[in-house]
C-alpha cells in the first residue's frame, strides 16, 4: 500500500499549488485586449438540447460574425466599437448556489467584462444581487419570471427578453379569437415554478376574458417524469375543449409521443405556450391545428428583415437547422449590449466605463432579428416586445405554422409599476408606453 500514496499526495500538492498560483495571477487587468464576455448556458442536463446548446451555438456564431464585421447595419462595426469579443462559456447546470459561485469566479478570477446568461428563473433570481455586488453588467437572456424586476430593482442587471406574462395573455387571446365558444379547459404543466406560474397566469387570463369557461383538471407531473399514462387518461376523461401546456424539452416530446396515439388531441384543442423549438422534431406527432407560441416573435414567427436573414444563415451554417427561440434570446442580449456599448463610447472615445454603458442601456431601443426591443420596464432594465402565436399545419411532411397573429406589446404586458397577476385580474387594460 505504501507505494501507492505518494501519487495522490503529489496530485493533492499540485492542486493546492495550482490554486495558490491562480490566486497570485488573478490580478492583472488590461483594457486594450478583447472584451471578455462570460456566457452561462446549459451544456448538460435536460435543458441543454432544446435551450442551452442552441443558445451557445447562436452566441458563438454571432461573436464570430461581429468580430469579422459581417453583421448588417447598424451592427456592422467590428466586435463592440472595433474591439473584438472573446467568449468564456460556463455550464449553467448545478443549481443556484453553484451559479452564484460561478458568477463570482467569472468576474473575479476570469475577469470577464460582461456576463450574458441564465435560462433558469431560479438562477436569474439568485445571481441578480450578486451581479449588483460585483458591479458587473449582467444580462439575463432567457429566463421568464416577472419576479426579477417586479420584486427588486437593479443597476447592473438587464433582461433583453420580455418576461413570461405575455405568453399566457397572448396564448389565451389567440385561443379565444379562433375558438370563441370554449366551454372548458384543462392543463398539464410541470410541477415547478415555470409550470405553476404558466398555469396560474393562464387560468387568471381565462377568468378575465372568458369567465364562463370551467377548469376541468390541472395535471402537475413532476419535472422529468417521462411517463404520462395516468395523466393522459385523466385528461381524456375530462373531454375538455382545450388543453393548456407549458411543457418543454424531453417532457413535452414524451407527452406528445404518448398522447397522440391515444387520440387526446382529437378530443381537445392543444395550446403549447413554448412549443416552437420542437416543431421540426415532432413531425408525425404534432397534430395539425395545435396552437403554438415561441415566447416572443422568435423562430418561425420572426418577420423577414436583414437581421433575421443574417441570423438564420450564420446559425444554419453551424447547426444544420434554423435557430429556435433561445437562440433569438441570446442574440438579443448581444445586440442590445453592443448598441449600448457603442452609444456609451461615443465618437472616437476609448472603452466606456461600465456606468456609461448602463446609462446608455437604460430605456434603449434596439433592433433584433425578432423585431424591435425596448428596454421599458424595471426602470429601463427589462425589455418589452410584442409576441405572436400560430397554428400548426403539416405541409409535405414538415410541420409549419400558419394563421400567425402578432400582438402589440401594450396588449400583452403590464405597464411599469403594476404586478403581472394584478394587471391580469384587473382586466388587462393597455398601459401607456
Amino acid at each position, binding site marked *: 500500500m505504501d507505494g501507492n500514496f505518494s501519487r495522490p499526495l503529489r496530485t493533492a500538492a499540485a492542486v493546492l499549488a*495550482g490554486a495558490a498560483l491562480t490566486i497570485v495571477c488573478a490580478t492583472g487587468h488590461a483594457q486594450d485586449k478583447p472584451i471578455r464576455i462570460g456566457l452561462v448556458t446549459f451544456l*448538460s442536463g435536460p435543458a441543454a438540447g432544446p435551450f442551452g446548446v442552441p443558445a451557445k451555438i447562436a452566441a458563438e456564431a454571432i461573436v464570430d460574425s461581429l468580430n469579422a464585421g459581417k453583421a448588417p447595419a447598424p451592427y456592422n462595426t467590428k466586435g463592440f466599437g472595433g474591439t473584438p469579443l472573446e467568449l468564456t462559456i460556463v*455550464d449553467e447546470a448545478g*443549481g*443556484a448556489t453553484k451559479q452564484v459561485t460561478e458568477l463570482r469566479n467569472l468576474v473575479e478570477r476570469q475577469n470577464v467584462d460582461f456576463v450574458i446568461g441564465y435560462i433558469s428563473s431560479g438562477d436569474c433570481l*439568485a445571481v441578480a*444581487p450578486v451581479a449588483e455586488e460585483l458591479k458587473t453588467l449582467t444580462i439575463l437572456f432567457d429566463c421568464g419570471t416577472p*419576479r426579477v424586476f417586479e420584486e427588486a430593482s437593479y443597476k447592473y442587471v438587464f433582461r433583453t427578453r420580455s418576461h413570461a406574462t405575455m405568453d399566457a395573455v397572448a396564448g389565451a387571446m389567440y385561443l379565444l379569437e379562433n375558438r370563441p365558444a370554449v366551454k372548458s379547459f384543462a392543463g398539464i404543466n410541470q410541477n415547478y*415554478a415555470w409550470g405553476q406560474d404558466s398555469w396560474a397566469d393562464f387560468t387568471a387570463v381565462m377568468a378575465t376574458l372568458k369567465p364562463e369557461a370551467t377548469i376541468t383538471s390541472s395535471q402537475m407531473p413532476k419535472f422529468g417524469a417521462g411517463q404520462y399514462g395516468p395523466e393522459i387518461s385523466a385528461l381524456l376523461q375530462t373531454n375538455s375543449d382545450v388543453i393548456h401546456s407549458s411543457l418543454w424539452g424531453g417532457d413535452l416530446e414524451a407527452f406528445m409521443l404518448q398522447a397522440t396515439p391515444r387520440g387526446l388531441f382529437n378530443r381537445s384543442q392543444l395550446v403549447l405556450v413554448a412549443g416552437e423549438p420542437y416543431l421540426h422534431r415532432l413531425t408525425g406527432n404534432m397534430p395539425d391545428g395545435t396552437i403554438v407560441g415561441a415566447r416572443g416573435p422568435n423562430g418561425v414567427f420572426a418577420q423577414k428583415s436583414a437581421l433575421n436573414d443574417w441570423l438564420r444563415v450564420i446559425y444554419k451554417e453551424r447547426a444544420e437547422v434554423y435557430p429556435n427561440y433561445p437562440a433569438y434570446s441570446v442574440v438579443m442580449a448581444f445586440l442590445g449590449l453592443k448598441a449600448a456599448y457603442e452609444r456609451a463610447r461615443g465618437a472616437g472615445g476609448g472603452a466606456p466605463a461600465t456606468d456609461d454603458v448602463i446609462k446608455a442601456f437604460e430605456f434603449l431601443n434596439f433592433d433584433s432579428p425578432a423585431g424591435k426591443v425596448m428596454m421599458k420596464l424595471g426602470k429601463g432594465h427589462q425589455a418589452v416586445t410584442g409576441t405572436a402565436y400560430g397554428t400548426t399545419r403539416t405541409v409535405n411532411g414538415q410541420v409549419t405554422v400558419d394563421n400567425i397573429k402578432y400582438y402589440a406589446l401594450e396588449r400583452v404586458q403590464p405597464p411599469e409599476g403594476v404586478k403581472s397577476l394584478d394587471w391580469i385580474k384587473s382586466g388587462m387594460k393597455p398601459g401607456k408606453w
Partner: protein
Amino acid sequence: MKRDFTVRILFGVLVVLLVAGPLLPRWAMFLITLSLCYGAVVLGMMLLMRTGVVSFGHGLYYCLGAYAAGTLDVLFGVSDIAVMLLAAVAVTGVVSALLGLLLRKYRDIFFAMLSLAFSMILYGLLVKTSALGSSDGFNVAAKTLFGIRIAGTDFERYVIFAVTVLVAFVAAVCMHKYLASHMGRLAGAIRDNELRVEYMGASVRNTIHINYVMSAVLAGLGGAMAAVSVGHIDPEMSYWTTSGEFVFVAILAGTGSVLAPFLGAFIFETIRSFAYEYSPNTWQMALGTTMLLVIMFLPGGLWSLFTRMRKAA
C-alpha cells in the same frame, strides 16, 4: 498516546483566516465561506458515520436551516444574522428530535433511505409552496449582525466570512471535545458492535438519537450560513443530490479528525470550481474520477494522508 494538537491547530487556522481574510481575493473568500458551510454539514455527517449510520437525506436539515433563516425576513421582518442562525438551530433541533424518535430504530441502507424519503417530502412541500417561490426559491439578505447594519457596507462580505469562520471554529472545537468524551466514544463502539454496547449497559438508541440531533443542528447551521452567504435559497437544497454530495465529501475527507470535513469540503469546492472552468463539458467525469481515485488509493479519505505522514515522521 500521541499529544493532541487539534484544538491548537483549529485556533491557528481561525487566526490565520480572520487576519488573512481581507487580503484574499473576494472569490477565494467566498469559496472558503461556502466550504465552511458545507464543512459544518459534513462535520455532522462525520459524527453519524462514526456512529455507524449514514443519512442520504441530510439535505432535509440543510434546507430547513436555510428556510428557517430565510423566512424570518418574509414572516417577521427579522434579518439579523445571529437571530437567523438561532432560528435554524431551533427548527432543526426540534424536527430532528421528533424524526429521531423514528429513525433511531433504523440502520444501514434503511436509515439512509428513510431519511431520503423525509428530505424528498420537504422538497415536494416547498415546490408546492408558491408563496415561497416554489422551485425558484427566493433571495435572502442579511441586513444586520447583533443590530449593527452590515448590508451595503464595504465590510459586508468580510463580516459574513468572519461569522462563518467563527461558527465553524466553535462547532469544530465542541465536536472535538464531544468525540473525546464518554458519550462521544460510544459512537465508535456502536459502529463496531451494537450488542456489546447494550451489554455494557449503554443505550444504543439514545446515543444514536443524540448524535442524530447534533448532526441535524450542524446541517441546519450550515444551511443558514449558506443562505446568508449565497443570498438565495431554493428547494434544491433538500433534493437527494445535495444530500448525496454531503456523503460524498464525508467519504472523500475521511472521519479521522474534526479538521477533515472542512478540508474535504474546501478541496471538493475547489476541484468542482476549477473543473467547471477548465472542462465545462466533462466536469462530472472529472468529479467521478477523483472520487474513484480517493476510494481506491486512500480508503481512509484524504485525512489519512496526514495521519500517514505523522506516522512516517
